[in-house]
């Protein structure tokens, strides 16, 4: 039994020292950040200069009569929606069987598992607008190429998300179906699909949100939608019009996201 020490008089325990590795990592991070900042052309002055830039005057006032005109903004925005809907339906529809082929639990055999996994990670590593630009080059400027690009991308994202859900599904019903003598596809259909369907729908809604966001910028590379208008106005430095488009886009994206989040909350 040690002697009782009056509060406030005893010696404090020594503070543990950081490990040398911690120091090394911290220094490496700082050096790396400073180096990248120099490469990028980081300037503190920008944070001040930006606010006093006279070009901000070009952003205001928003020309509402131009923005709310049907042909200028609303029609391209509708096109954006159409691209997003088509891409979501095609991408998520194709992803349903593909995800089952890519999950460890339900892959018919291991070559299918590995080949699909590698192909998908390559498809996902190419940024979405790279796809759009490539497809615009291949099949021509317009919403058609944009829908193609987003279909590919949402397919890749969906397969990844959904196959991970299937990985985590309860294998019990699948084993039961197999034990009862079922073949592979019916066993998956009755044993796994019902348990993962709610997450599938939730992910599909999430992918739809992603597609709405992506299809806004598709037009910047010539793949249709509202971005086409942003690009056209940018070349003429009509920043007030761009700001007006932004306000509309924000309202629309916000509303869709709220609906989607509410639906997803009910599902999962």
């Amino acid at each position, binding site marked *: 039994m040690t002697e009782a020490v009056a509060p406030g008089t005893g010696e404090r325990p020594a503070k543990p020292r950081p490990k040398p590795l911690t120091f090394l990592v911290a220094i490496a991070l700082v050096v790396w950040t400073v180096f990248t900042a120099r490469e990028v052309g980081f300037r503190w002055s*920008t944070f001040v200069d930006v606010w006093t830039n006279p070009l901000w005057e070009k952003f205001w006032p928003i020309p509402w009569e131009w923005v709310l005109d049907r042909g200028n903004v609303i029609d391209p925005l509708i*096109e954006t929606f*159409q691209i997003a809907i088509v891409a979501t339906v095609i991408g998520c529809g194709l992803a349903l069987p593909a995800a089952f082929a890519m999950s460890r639990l339900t892959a018919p055999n291991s070559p299918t598992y590995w080949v699909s996994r590698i192909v998908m990670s390559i498809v996902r590593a190419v940024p979405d607008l*790279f796809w759009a630009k*490539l497809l615009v080059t291949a*099949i021509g400027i317009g919403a*058609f190429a944009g*829908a*193609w690009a987003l279909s590919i991308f949402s397919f890749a994202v969906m397969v990844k998300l959904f196959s991970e859900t299937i990985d985590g599904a309860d294998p019990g019903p699948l084993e039961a179906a197999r034990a009862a003598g079922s073949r592979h596809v019916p066993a998956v259909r009755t044993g796994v699909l019902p348990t993962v369907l709610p997450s599938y729908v939730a992910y599909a809604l999430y992918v739809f949100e992603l597609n709405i966001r992506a299809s806004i910028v598709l037009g*910047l590379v010539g793949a249709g939608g509202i971005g086409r208008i942003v690009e056209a106005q940018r070349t003429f430095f009509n920043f007030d019009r761009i700001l007006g488009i932004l306000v509309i886009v924000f309202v629309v994206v916000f509303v869709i996201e709220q609906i989607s989040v509410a639906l997803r909350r009910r599902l999962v």
Partner: protein
Amino acid sequence: MTATLPSDQADDAASETGRIPRPLRPRLARLAVFLVIVVGFIWGVSGLDASFERLRSAPGDAWAILRLMWPPDFATVIERGAIGKVLESVYIAWIGTVIAATLSLPLAFLASNNISPAFIRLPIRQLFNVIRAVPELIVAVVLLGVVPLGAWAGALAIGLHSIGTLGKLSSEEIESAAHGPVEAVEACGGTFISRVRWGVLPQVLPQIASYWLFRFEINVRASAVLGMIGAGGIGSELIAQLRFRNFPEVGAVLIITVAVVVFIDTVSSSVRKRIIAGGSGDPSRMMALIRDLGGSGLARQP
């Protein structure tokens, strides 16, 4: 058995086919969802000037381009400095992430319901929502109006946009932090700042740091795209090569991009796993860490 079925008719149907009839309402709901999707799809396709002619020729055209890219011409692209440009994309993504992390951390604390009062919290949350709703490419378009074209503008655009997501995720993490350590600091007479610094920050920092890294992975892709509108990086090289239809060079640019993106994803995700697991990379260690941190979690352990 008959008592549970709605009518004799249903009972007959069941006995004839040997099946129990399916309930009607879920079937109608399923049909409605199906119809909505089909109608939406047809409406969508109608706006895409997708004639059957185009639909038929598109896969062939896309495949032809893909064929032209093989074999990729690395020599020309590397001579033109593609490696430097892809590294520039990585730098842009890093600086953007650092900016976003620095700005979003204090904002996230101000947006959490266990730290900050409603009149501060709610406006900041709305700010996160507004920022998240505007894609970084659009942010870049606007910024390019007032910041000189180049890598720095791209980094700023990425930094601004990432504040929205990082702030939201971080504040959710802060809100789920255990209250015990905060009370302990309070009991020792800690001020507000001490409570946040010693009571909350150590609990949430590993997870928040892993969000930063995750955002860095996303930002590498985003900065590659930003190059396409002139904000520096590999995207500009892709555009340049596509303009002159140099498809073997395009193939090389794509392969370099994919290689760098996959490399960064792999490194970053293994670092993230180590951060969350507390340095050992061992999941049981992570569970121990969670148990240690969650005050009430201890009681539930056997």
